[in-house]
């Protein structure tokens, strides 16, 4: 640029700079949205447009129901195919936000003349919302820090693997839209508490309502915002604006929340919501005293105020404890306890800890999911502490709590990601502010220095240093981008319904066993057939095979799950009794021994045993399934209780005949556990007999279908024998005395 141009500072050029800035912002945000959307498409490109994993299958099924039968049918939907024979009231046990959003998008696009399959709408919902998330993160950060930080944070959130893991195309789950709602609610909250306007607070409450309708994680909001207010009170910065914002938000928000059938009266009846309720009351007291103080004068009030507010606080706490103890307010749920005590779930509620995403997070996954962001996150936190104001206190609280919760459960990495993106964005934005700008460093720092104006030489060195720092920063960001893309493509873009393996020449091999099995079920079994499987596959069976299941991923009834666990862990006779009682027609197990798929039922089996033991401690004992050395093994050292269990038999039935095409390798070699299985059928092979200590024969069930790679095995439960009850004697062994 020429000298005169920079020197001329008039209103006109300022306006044009502003226009360019706006244009740039729009372009950048648009490209961020496009980037976020397209980097989530790996799964669709590699595989196909398909719903992923487990829960999304239920959401998809529910959405289909919604679009086919309308809202009221959806609201009153009693799903008789789930939890046989208990059934499930879907309308009242689901967060309907996701289905309604997708249903709305579907009908809107159809109204506009784009006929789109509901499946495709569902598949692309999460990527679409990732763009909105980026926008709302931009707004939030801009509100809290600066526009530059906002752009950075939008860019970060759009590609951060921690968020991508839940929002790739096909991952049609609540979290996909909930993170947007979360960020947007926070943005509106900051807006409301800064301005003290009833309008913004109402918008915030409405956004909170959307969040409540979408995800159980709304509890996070309803605890963080009161906490923000509470901290503001403690540090003495509470004012009327905050009062207006909070009371408006709380009343409207909770009233709205109670209109979600699944939430119902929880906001006034469960401990999770009591903090917000308490703060609401506390705020009233403080406002009242503020009013009194205003009228009576400062000195008189001070003592009265503290005594009274402490009294009210203590009384409120006592009341809550009393109500909880007397059962009017529900105590904290198990999931909530496990947030504080990581060992709690393992001991008391195995069903929670049996889910891999409820395990404590390893430090590697912090880096894996956030890369450089997690490293600069503390710096961002420090910047906020250093330059704190009413609104930034929120960032600090949000950051600290999210970091804690993310450490407890892998799943909550999701709530950590946005705040990490924001704080890291603040850091990067500050760094670039400091080092990129060609203008001399800010005046204040110059004043501190003892020496007068820096020499030209010093300026040159500073310029060089600046450029080196900038280059380094850009390189780091570049690596971050590469890492994100790599993680997205390799770790988070597998539908898990379809598996793929890589051949030696690099070509890919698609394993479509799950759909093969579900399709078989759909076409070859009676419409009302009941399929027993471990709960992980309940939603998939209902979604893809359209058959009744006993238990599914909505793990609301532990007793029922324990019943299935007991059947799987018992020997065939006992299992048969249970299956008869539950009218089971088919048994479905996942077996990875042939291809080395580690997420199979044998590896999950110990959880089945534990859950069954929790309900039937005198019949199922975990220790009975270990070798004397206390190991969990499938080879010949496996104890009899294990090898005779339904799970072992159904998994390894006829597996002894499999030889993997390797002449020297043993038959029945389990590739998942890298051992030769202990119990095989008797089989003559080559010169020698392979005889195991028992013969695995099936008595009450028969193999009905096994997929190409043995991944899914389906057994049919045989009806009771006609002669069951007759005693067949072996005449040959009878001895006559004379």
């Amino acid at each position: 640029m020429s000298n005169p141009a920079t020197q001329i500072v008039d209103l006109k050029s300022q306006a044009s700079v502003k226009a360019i800035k706006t244009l740039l912002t729009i372009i950048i945000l648009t490209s961020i949205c496009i980037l976020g959307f397209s980097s989530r498409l790996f799964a669709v490109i590699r595989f196909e447009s398909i719903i992923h994993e487990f829960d999304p299958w239920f959401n998809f099924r529910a959405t289909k129901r919604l679009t086919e039968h309308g809202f009221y049918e959806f609201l009153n939907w009693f799903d008789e195919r789930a939890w046989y024979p208990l059934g499930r009231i879907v309308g009242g046990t689901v967060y309907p936000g996701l289905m309604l959003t997708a249903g709305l998008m579907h009908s809107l696009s159809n109204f506009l003349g784009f006929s789109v399959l509901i499946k495709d709408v569902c598949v692309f919902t999460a990527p679409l919302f990732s763009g909105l998330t980026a926008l709302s993160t931009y707004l939030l950060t801009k509100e809290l820090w600066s526009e530059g930080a906002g752009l950075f944070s939008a860019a970060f959130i759009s590609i951060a693997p921690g968020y991508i893991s839940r929002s790739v195309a096909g991952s049609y789950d609540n979290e996909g839209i909930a993170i947007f709602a979360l960020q947007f609610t926070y943005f509106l909250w900051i807006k409301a508490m800064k301005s003290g306007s009833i309008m913004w607070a109402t918008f915030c409450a409405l956004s909170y309502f959307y969040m409540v309708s979408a995800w159980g994680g709304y509890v996070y909001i309803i605890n963080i915002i009161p906490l923000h207010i509470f901290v503001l009170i403690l540090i003495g910065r509470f004012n009327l604006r905050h009062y207006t914002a909070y009371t408006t938000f709380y009343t409207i928000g909770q009233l709205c929340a109670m209109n979600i059938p699944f939430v119902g009266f929880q906001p006034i009846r469960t401990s999770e919501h009591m903090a917000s309720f308490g703060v609401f009351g506390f705020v009233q007291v403080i406002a009242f005293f503020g009013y009194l103080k205003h009228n009576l004068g400062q000195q008189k009030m001070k003592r009265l105020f503290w005594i009274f507010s402490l009294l009210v606080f203590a009384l409120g706490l006592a009341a809550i404890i009393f109500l909880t103890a007397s059962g009017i307010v529900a105590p904290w749920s198990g999931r909530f306890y496990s947030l504080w005590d990581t060992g709690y779930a393992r001991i008391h509620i195995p069903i929670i800890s049996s889910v891999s995403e409820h395990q404590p997070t390893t430090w590697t996954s912090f880096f894996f999911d956030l890369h450089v962001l997690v490293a600069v996150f503390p710096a961002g936190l420090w910047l906020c502490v250093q330059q704190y104001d009413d609104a930034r206190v929120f960032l600090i609280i949000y950051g600290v709590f999210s970091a804690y919760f993310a450490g407890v459960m892998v799943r909550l990495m999701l709530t950590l990601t946005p705040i990490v993106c924001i704080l890291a964005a603040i850091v990067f934005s500050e760094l670039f502010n400091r080092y990129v700008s060609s203008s001399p460093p800010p005046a204040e720092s110059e004043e501190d220095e003892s020496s007068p104006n820096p020499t030209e030489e010093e300026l040159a060195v500073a310029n060089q240093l600046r450029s080196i720092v900038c280059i380094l920063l850009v390189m780091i960001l570049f690596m971050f981008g590469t890492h994100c893309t790599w993680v997205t493509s390799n770790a988070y873009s597998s539908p898990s319904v379809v598996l793929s393996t890589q051949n030696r020449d690099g070509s890919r091999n698609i394993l479509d066993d799950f759909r093969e099995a579900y399709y078989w079920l759909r076409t070859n079994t009676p419409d009302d057939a009941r399929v027993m499987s471990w709960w992980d596959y309940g939603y998939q069976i209902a979604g893809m095979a359209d058959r009744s299941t006993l238990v599914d991923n909505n793990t609301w009834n532990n007793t029922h799950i324990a019943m299935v666990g007991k059947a799987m862990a018992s020997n065939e006779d006992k299992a048969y009794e249970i299956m008869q009682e539950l009218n089971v027609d088919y048994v479905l197990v996942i077996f990875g021994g042939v291809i080395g798929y580690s997420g199979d039922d044998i590896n999950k089996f110990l959880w089945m045993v534990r859950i069954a033991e929790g309900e039937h401690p005198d019949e199922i004992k975990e220790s009975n399934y270990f070798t004397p050395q206390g190991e969990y093994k499938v080879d010949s050292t496996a104890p009899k209780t294990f090898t005779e269990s339904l799970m072992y038999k159904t998994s390894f039935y006829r597996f002894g005949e499999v030889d993997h095409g390797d002449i020297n390798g043993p038959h029945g070699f389990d590739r998942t556990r890298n051992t030769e299985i202990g119990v095989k059928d008797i089989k003559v092979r080559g010169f020698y007999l392979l005889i195991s200590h028992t013969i695995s024969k099936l008595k009450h069930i028969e193999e009905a279908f096994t997929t190409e790679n043995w991944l899914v095995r389906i057994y049919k439960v045989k009806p009771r024998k006609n002669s069951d009850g007759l005693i067949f004697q072996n005449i040959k062994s009878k001895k006559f005395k004379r």
Partner: protein
Amino acid sequence: MIIHSLLFAAAFAAKAKMLVVLENERQKNEYATVLNQLNEKFETYYKLADDADLHLVKYGKNLYQNAIIMAPSTEEFGGDVKTKTFVDFTQNGGNLMVFASSNIGDAIRELGAEFGIEYDETGTKVMSHQLYDFERDALNHDHSRFQLKASESFLGGSQPIVGPAGYAGLLIDNAVAMKIDKKNTLAFPIVKCNSYCYSWFPNEPITEYPMAVGRDITLVAGIQLRNNARIAFFSSMSMFSNKLIRQKFITYWNNDKNEHAREQNSVNKFSMHVFGWATNNSGTFRIAVFKHNLVDKENQRNDFYYINEEIEVTAIVQEHVEDNWEPASLLFENLWLDFHRLDPFVRMQFENQGGGKFTAKFKVPDTYGVFNFIVWQTKLGHTYLEHKEQITVRPPRHDMYERFIASAYPYYFSSFSMMLGVTLMSFAILYHRDVSPAKKNN
């Protein structure tokens, strides 16, 4: 050949087929009375036990509906008939009657074992020194032809099996003792010995405890498999011979009165009823119609119910009488219904409307879920009646609850009054000028 048999089958479609396996041709005459009874009711086929052309099951299908094995001393069956064949035959729904005798052969012994019936050794006989045939056996000790009084030996009298009461007694002859395994839940005795009986080699000293004595000895046993195939085991064959059926009385020595006395023989009646039962011609029922619907006549929905609705279940039970299904007779008195979801929520008796029609009315329990109507009735001598029907019980729709509840009116009032209050107050605040500043100025 096939066409021929098809035509044949068509012509006599009404009659069930029965295979009669004999030991020798002579038996046709010896047992003419019994066999004629069968000839009337069935399309009978006679085969010898060692006939190379003896078949029961072909390509997994039964060739006959009924089979009667009157070949006690057979060591091995001809054709492809093995012990296992009889099991397959009954598993496929065929009815079987097996006759034994004191000269029992291995084939029958194994057949019995297959169904949980144990025979005493070959050569042993069931004997009783109480009412033995005085005319025949006064001088020897082989008292294997004896009279069994109905009052002390018959099974509690399941009507479908033995017919109405009025039996005098049975003349037992040359029987081999049978025992039913205690754990055998499907087999039951039809005729038991009285407590005077024992089983041993005739005219030989008893050197050890006999296999069975007294009431342990079963003379006629019945089995009903879960598919309602019926099997009857008879321990004596000759008691059904012409000679003994015709012998209406037996002369015995009455110790009390020190004189000869006579006792009646009802074997003819017995054979008629037991054969009828064993060939599924008595005590055979089915649920022909099972339907359920709302009691509400205007709304006859029956594909699902809401909780607490009144519903009505109707079942029509039919009886198999001479190859026809007719409304169940009075013999079939009652029927029970379960409304079941893991546990029976409702268990009640149907109301017998006569003519085999049963109805039950009840209120669906206040629990939603997938329920089953279950009828599962087992009664000695009757076929097992089983019926299961799945039905969904739903919670009420959102608009099925009361819209305005009387007890909620205070709340309605309070909310509306509050709305009014807020409006008035804001009006007052907005338009009310405070006069205090003016006072201050003063």
